[in-house]
């Protein structure tokens, strides 16, 4: 059973690659075939992700569905299991797998109407998705980094070719900042593998080395910032978040969805996998700094969003703000706070994917993203407005939606360890309410600008995606025990996390 489940994971990262390969061989004139194939792959992956999440036993081992294939061993400095294709999920990655499935499927449907170089778009899109799954599943440092890079690199072309506003600048800035971050991870990997001296990249073995003192506390304190900053860039860690607004503003809709929805979570996930799990002593030493930076990010993002007039910039800054919460949650190293951080990753993922979907749907028709150009949209696009209000309320943390569940956990955790910063985080949530309500007032209600009287409401594809995302928000908001149960065991087993 366990082995068979391992193959499910292998399918999760292999199927998108296979899809990319098949698409590569299709003639580019076959746009409908490309779309149908992608939609089918997206649906299979969604099913697979739901399966992985549901099949993860809350009461079982921390790591489940393990699969380990020897890859490179007994050569050079590599010993037994030097580099192996080691896959598996714990509670955190199971939840993020679910998120990936949902957002990727929604993104596929949204890209349906893409006409320009459709085939090339989906090839890169699936390569990216494979990278995301691979990073969540990998239990080997080599493959973790392999898939992590694989998820980042296609963004340059995805934004550069299909993007909008200042796309070349945004694409270059984003790619360079993210790859620059991975230089830090790279150096960290070299140092850790060398210092452990075990001739292996196997993550569970290295985690053990981090716990049992094979990696000395001094060493951990030096190396932790490399991982934290390297992954932090992708997680939107203030002050290295500046790629986020520019990148999101330039990116095409489905790329924004996947990027803000899933990719930024890879960064936070990397901080857990590499930072907290390999270097627990280092994590404990540096976590206060992460909390401070997270809080600054949460406040800064919220205040910046308050002053923006462009939809996408508001969401870009709001993402920085929400990822700030995630960092605060992780920084508490308290079970409730870390749980909240993980829930927030999921919650922000679906919520922000929905927001970018809606912005895209509007922009494709209206070709402006300036708030002040709009007014009274609710009269012509009721479905659109309802969906946006749901996303906005989840963003604000209204009880009953996922944002509340996540943020509540984070605040409880933060008050436990760092009361002051908990208070500041709540202040950021209040500012979030301000920028959301301002947008509601300006755009949705009030007198209808006659220029927009012939805007069309959501298309069927967009509606399906939006409903899927809203259901996910409601599920976590109303009945969160399936989520928290699966996280509990994993998080209590993270080194250094107190309960």
């Amino acid at each position, binding site marked *: 059973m366990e082995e068979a489940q391992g193959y499910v994971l292998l399918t999760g990262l292999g199927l998108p690659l296979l899809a990319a390969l098949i698409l590569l061989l299709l003639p580019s004139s076959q746009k409908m075939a490309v779309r149908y194939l992608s939609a089918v792959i997206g649906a299979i992956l969604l099913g697979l992700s739901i399966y992985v999440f549901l099949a993860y036993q809350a009461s079982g081992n921390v790591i489940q569905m393990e699969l380990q294939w020897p*890859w*490179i*061993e007994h*050569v*050079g*400095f590599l010993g037994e299991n030097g580099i192996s294709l080691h896959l598996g999920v714990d509670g955190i990655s199971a939840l993020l797998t679910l998120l990936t499935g949902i957002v990727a499927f929604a993104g596929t449907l949204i890209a349906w109407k893409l006409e320009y170089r459709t085939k*090339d778009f989906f090839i890169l899109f699936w390569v990216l998705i494979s*990278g995301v799954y691979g990073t969540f599943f990998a239990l080997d440092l*080599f493959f973790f*980094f*392999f*898939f992590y*890079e*694989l998820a980042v*690199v296609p963004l*340059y*072309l995805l934004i*550069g*070719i299909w993007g909008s506003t200042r796309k*070349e600048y945004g694409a*270059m800035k984003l*790619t*360079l900042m993210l*790859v*620059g971050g*991975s*230089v830090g991870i*790279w*150096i960290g*990997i*070299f*140092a850790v*593998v*060398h210092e452990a001296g075990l001739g292996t990249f196997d993550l569970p073995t290295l985690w053990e080395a981090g716990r049992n003192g094979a990696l000395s506390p001094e060493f951990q304190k030096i190396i932790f910032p490399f991982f934290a900053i390297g992954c932090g860039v992708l997680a939107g860690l203030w002050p290295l978040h500046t790629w986020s607004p520019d990148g999101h503003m330039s990116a095409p809709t489905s790329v924004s969805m996947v990027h803000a929805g899933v990719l930024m979570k890879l960064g936070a996930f990397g901080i857990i996998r590499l930072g907290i799990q390999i270097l627990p002593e280092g994590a404990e030493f540096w976590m206060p700094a992460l909390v401070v930076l997270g809080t600054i990010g949460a406040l800064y993002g919220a205040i910046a969003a308050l002053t923006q007039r462009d939809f996408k910039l508001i969401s870009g800054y709001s993402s920085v703000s929400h990822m700030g919460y995630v960092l605060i949650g992780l920084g508490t190293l308290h079970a409730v706070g870390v749980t909240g951080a993980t829930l927030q990753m999921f919650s922000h993922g679906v919520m922000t994917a929905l927001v970018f979907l809606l912005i895209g749907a509007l922009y494709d028709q209206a070709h402006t993203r300036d708030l002040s150009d709009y007014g009274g949209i609710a009269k012509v696009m009721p479905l659109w407005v309802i969906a946006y209000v749901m996303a906005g309320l989840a963003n604000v943390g209204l009880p009953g939606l996922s944002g509340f569940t996540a943020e509540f956990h984070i605040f409880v955790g933060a008050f436990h360890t760092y009361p002051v910063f908990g208070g500041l985080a709540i202040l950021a949530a209040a500012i979030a309410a301000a920028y959301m309500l301002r947008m509601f007032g300006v755009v949705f209600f009030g007198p209808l600008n006659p220029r927009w009287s012939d805007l069309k409401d959501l298309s069927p594809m967009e509606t399906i995606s939006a409903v899927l995302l809203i259901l996910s928000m409601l599920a976590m908001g109303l009945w969160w025990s399936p989520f928290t149960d699966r996280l509990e065991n994993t998080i209590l087993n993270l080194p250094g996390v107190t309960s």
Partner: protein
Amino acid sequence: MRDFTLFIPEYIAVASAVAILTAELVWPKIRKDYLAYATAAGALGWLIAAIPYIGNTAGNFENLLLTDDFTTYFRILAAGIVMAIALLSAHYLQNRTTTAGEYYGLLLVGGTGMVLMAASRELLTAYISLELLSFSLYILVGYLKRDRLSNEASLKYILLGAFSSAMLLYGISLIYGVTGTTSYEGIAEALAARDGGTDAATVVGIMLIVAGVGFKVSAAPFHMWAPDAYQGAPLPITAFLSTASKAAGFALILRLFTGALVVDAVEWRAAIAVLAAITMTAGNLIAIQQTNLKRLVAYSSIGQVGYMLVAIAAIGYGDAATAQSASSALLLHIAGYTVSTLALFTALTAHYNRTGDDSISGLRGLAETQPFLALVITASLFSFAGLPFFAGFATKLLLFQASTTDGLLWLVGLGAANSFVSLYYYLMIMRQIYLFDPAEGQTRFRPTPLLGALAGLLLLGMLFIGIYPQPVFEATDHAASALFEVSASVLASGR
């Protein structure tokens, strides 16, 4: 006893060279691409003849040359490189020269020089082998007689090459003066047997050798010839320069430094580390400003040489095990780098045959006019940058990891930072290919089947090394351990 059977593969290579030269002499109007195919066939025979040597006990020729797995590894590499270069020259040369016999003959001779460099275990033999390769290259770089750039490149290369040879020879004579021998083992024993500190002559000798070999592999600050030679040379020879001459240079360096000079590692390791740091940084930073593709590749390959030198520094800093695994990873990286470079040049040659434009902006819109070539170029650039799926990701990661020793983490970190810099200018090329529409008048075209197939094959090679390097890594591991079987006794006696 002189065992002449040790060099059967090289006999085939040289015999093919002579046959090709004669063929054109006898039959001057022979189609020039037939000569290319004959060269490729000769190289294939060379490669096949090398296979039985894999895993054999090392053959020692008069203490001058050694045919062990290390030599065999470079045999196969050299034969493969010559074969690929011959095939990608076929069409290019047909349109540009009236004679081609010398060109193909010298390719084979140069390749033989590369093998002998790997096999040499004696300073003068190594020097002569090095010159065999260099002289072939001097002529090949200037082969386009009516092209001014080609002439300039050749002249520059000869002058600076002669200068570096002089330094190398001076270094060799100083080492000979100190140790009384030119054999690597003898040098190691003599260096280990000295009591008291090192004398100035040894240090100066080693530094001159480092500088001389540094010239040949174009390590900064001895790299000045490279961009001009790369730019002026015929495109396939640029590929030959950036693969064969670098691989051969590192073969010689590995044999020399692990076999002879390792006992004096304290004297040279810091210098090599600094050289590596300067080389990679200078190569990558200057590459950013280039507008000509060949010059850009020249600087980018200088950057790659910097990464490779990190492993040599690690041999100096680490213990015996580190030295061996660093050598093995270096050989793996050379394989990955060679395949990627050949793939890049195959695609560039196909593009150049069509457009005659070797500026970076000449690639604009290639994704539309020829998506396959665009893919191959992208793949090889990503491979250089060390991005996943392609050879460079695995080989560079393993190279740096194997070279990580306690005193050297800073250099490895600098290497990682440099790969990041290199990504910027690779992305600038990608930008031309994918983000811009083709220039006016550029329409869709197909590469010749030969170049298309070669590019496809090399792309598969890149993917194979990048995804599943185990088989190649095992081969390089054998090659590296052969290197250290000889020097194990040396290591034990010295240090």
